[in-house]
């Protein structure tokens, strides 16, 4: 199989049996927004707005670079946004305006730099 063919047919999350380093026995307590994101995923599945399989598929569709660099729940929320756009449930403009609104709620000092990637 050619390299480009393999890029298309092997999902970036399909890593069983690939070479990898030693086990890192790491864990962290979920941040409140991460737990909220998990609860959101469950509720979206209960209503079949985004079922579990669509969530998996949506994360895979982010591609190898985002899968490698975003954290677990960062991948989820970006995947949800993309799926909701595709389904016509949300529009990108609507989400951008709401994100501005949410950011504006934060008291000065707590968030005195622009949010986003450094």
């Amino acid at each position, binding site marked *: 199989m050619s390299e480009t063919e393999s890029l298309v047919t092997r999902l970036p999350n399909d890593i069983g049996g690939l070479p990898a380093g030693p086990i890192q026995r790491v864990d962290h307590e979920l941040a409140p927004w991460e737990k909220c994101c998990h609860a959101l995923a469950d509720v979206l599945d209960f209503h079949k707005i985004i079922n579990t*399989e669509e969530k998996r598929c949506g994360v895979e569709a982010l591609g190898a670079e985002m899968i490698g660099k975003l954290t677990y729940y960062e991948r989820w929320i970006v995947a949800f946004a993309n799926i909701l756009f595709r389904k016509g449930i949300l529009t990108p403009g609507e989400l951008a305006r709401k994100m501005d609104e949410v950011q504006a709620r934060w008291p000065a000092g707590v968030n005195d730099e622009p949010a986003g990637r450094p």
Partner: protein
Amino acid sequence: MHDSSREAPDGQVGIVLAWGEVPVFRPGDPVRILTRYPVGHYRVPIYLRGKRGMVEAVVEPAGIDNEEEGYGRNAGIKLHYYRIAIPMTEIWSDYQGSHRGGLRVEVCETWLERI
């Protein structure tokens, strides 16, 4: 042609079963996981493609094909998944350590062939 998949397993006469209600494979059946390379979404890891194993159990209840579910199909014909037993030496030719090593995985019947 006689089609046993239409009949209830306990031999009840006259009861026609829906598609997918009767599992295609039974425990003990030797099977091979198909070698195919779908794009977009799948749930059969590449390291298991083409590997031979045995049906250990039928997973109940049947479920929707998860490759279709991945694109928002929340309904449709349900198919059976099977718990497949595969020796580690079948998967990894250079498997280290004891030969007594095995893998178990759930595979949808669309991905299995009888051998």
